[in-house]
């Protein structure tokens, strides 16, 4: 039983990372109805920028956090300005394909910078394990887990209670109607990409805390996308719940199924879950069901 809880806790810690990555995707979708494949790159670049200042320049933790956030937000803004703004008014699917092209281009930049090497963040959170009746939890992962939950709460409150959040929800509903009530839709697009890039930076830093920065890091965006879709693309709660759930399933599944099928359950569990959810509930577990008319 202790073993099971140990796997479960480890899974939940990893799951909070997935939830963080998915949060950025959900944010963009909630405000613009664009599904972003490129989000994994923002996560990876967030981690890379943070490494540049913490590991590369040797700045203290708080001082390297600020430029990392600013640079990632700038990258997000740049993507929105150069690539997605010209597509306003085009079919949403064009925007999806655009984010896919951005993913590839940024992947090239990422690979070009790393040159096949890995970068490891120096430890910046307290080390050690918290021991609760035999189950050990690494403290640094616990901190990033708490940060994830707090961030979710903050973003949900922003969407629900601020004027900016109201504007974003209105924009997602109908661009033209929102414009006619005095909301500047273009600005909303910029804000949401900046916000999403900052969430991505948090996700990147939290991810780089537990794994190296290497060429596969951007692909965590695909895991994030899976979580976002399974939870329902417009539901922050869904992203959190399904993110934690996916981490749980991956870890517990790997622990108990790997001996049966000969390993590698971790690599494929997410995709099987995605296929199952898409077949049973196409709009995700917490998503709004849309009725289509001709």
């Amino acid at each position, binding site marked *: 039983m202790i073993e099971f809880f140990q796997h479960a806790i480890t899974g939940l810690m990893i799951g909070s990372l997935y939830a963080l990555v998915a949060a950025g995707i959900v944010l963009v979708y909630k405000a613009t109805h664009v599904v972003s494949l490129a989000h994994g790159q923002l996560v990876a670049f967030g981690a890379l920028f943070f490494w540049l200042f913490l590991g590369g320049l040797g700045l203290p933790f708080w001082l390297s956090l600020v430029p990392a956030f600013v640079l990632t937000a700038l990258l997000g803004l740049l993507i929105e300005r150069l690539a997605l703004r010209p597509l306003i008014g085009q079919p949403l*699917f064009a925007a999806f394909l655009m984010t896919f092209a951005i993913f590839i281009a940024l992947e090239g930049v990422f690979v070009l910078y790393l040159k096949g090497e890995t970068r490891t963040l120096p430890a910046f959170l307290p080390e050690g394990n918290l021991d609760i009746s035999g189950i050990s939890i690494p403290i640094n992962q616990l901190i990033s887990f708490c940060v994830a939950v707090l961030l979710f709460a903050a973003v949900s409150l922003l969407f629900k209670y601020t004027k900016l959040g109201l504007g974003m929800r209105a924009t997602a509903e109908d661009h033209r109607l929102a414009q006619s009530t005095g909301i500047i839709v273009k600005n909303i697009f910029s804000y949401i990409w900046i916000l999403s890039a900052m969430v991505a930076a948090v996700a990147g830093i939290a991810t780089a805390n537990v794994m190296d920065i290497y060429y596969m890091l951007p692909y965590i965006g695909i895991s994030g996308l*899976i979580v976002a879709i399974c939870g329902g693309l417009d539901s922050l709660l869904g992203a959190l719940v399904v993110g934690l759930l996916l981490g749980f399933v991956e870890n517990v599944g790997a622990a108990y199924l790997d001996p049966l099928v000969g390993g590698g359950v971790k690599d494929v569990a997410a995709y*099987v879950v995605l296929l199952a959810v898409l077949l049973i509930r196409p709009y995700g577990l917490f998503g709004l069901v849309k009725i289509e008319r*001709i």
Partner: protein
Amino acid sequence: MRPCGVFDKSYGLDIAIIRTWQHWVILISALILLYTFPLFGSYYLVSFMNSLAITVIVVLGLQIVSGYCGQISFGQAAFMAIGAYTSAILTIKFGFSFWIALPLSGIMAGIVGIIGGAPSLRIKGMYLAMATIAIHFVVIWLILHMEITGSFKGLYPLPPSLGGFEFDTDERIFYIIMTVMVIMTYAARNLVRSKVGRAFVAIRDNDLAGEVMGVNLYYYKLLAFFVSCFYAGIAGSLWGHLITVVNTEQFTLMHALEYVGMLIIGGMGSIPGVFFGVLFIRILNELVMFSSPVLAKALPWLGSSPAAALGLIAFGLAVIVFLIFEPRGLAHRWEIFKASYRLYPFAH
């Protein structure tokens, strides 16, 4: 391509693919040129053409399911892998000849494609694209975890042979690949202008409206996936026997993304567009290949071998530029050129 003043005077002429005697001349001389190409082309050009033709077959399949039927698929590389592995297993482990294994691998990939296309009955657009990514990873995972596929080591199929003649060099297998490509192109060109093709287009433009008009959505969506994966399977089989080694490194998600990019650049919903897109990306790749050593020397911070990364950047930027400035792809430019040629020397 018709000059000004040529009219179709019968129904047969109207539906013909090849309309004028000039077309016949161009077609036949192009075919003669194609089949004599290994005699005067360099080894590099011949192997380039081989991989080009195989990619054309894959992207033709993708064009049918995505460009015509509107179901975006990021799983094409996985279905190509299924074709390659099926053909390799049939020839190595069961002693089938290549000529039987080739169509069988297409059919095998098609059947798996029907299973893979099943989610399209409930979801579409971006959701379906994600489902096909999931299918890609599940298929690759299964290949890596099965005994018969040789797991990580992969398989080593032999070059095809016919009556003692071994197609064991790039110049020799060139004829097989080109013949298959020509047949597949002809089949695709005809499929999309038949009843089936019109049903596909109806589903793409508005699936609900199509269903109301009497298009059987389930049948035609699954048919589109079957045909598309059949193409991928054939291409995979050819690829395996050309390279004579099959492993999962050759069928990554990046390959599948590349095929979709070729489709966007070439133009969705056009058979010539496939050729434009594949040519454009492959030539772009070759240019990056040739220029990257020079760039690496001039800019030392790029590292010693920036070719792969620069290729990705160039490819991504090309797709971005096309999406912004020419979302209908090179095929649209070709249509404009054809229209102006037909009107020449008049303005309209």
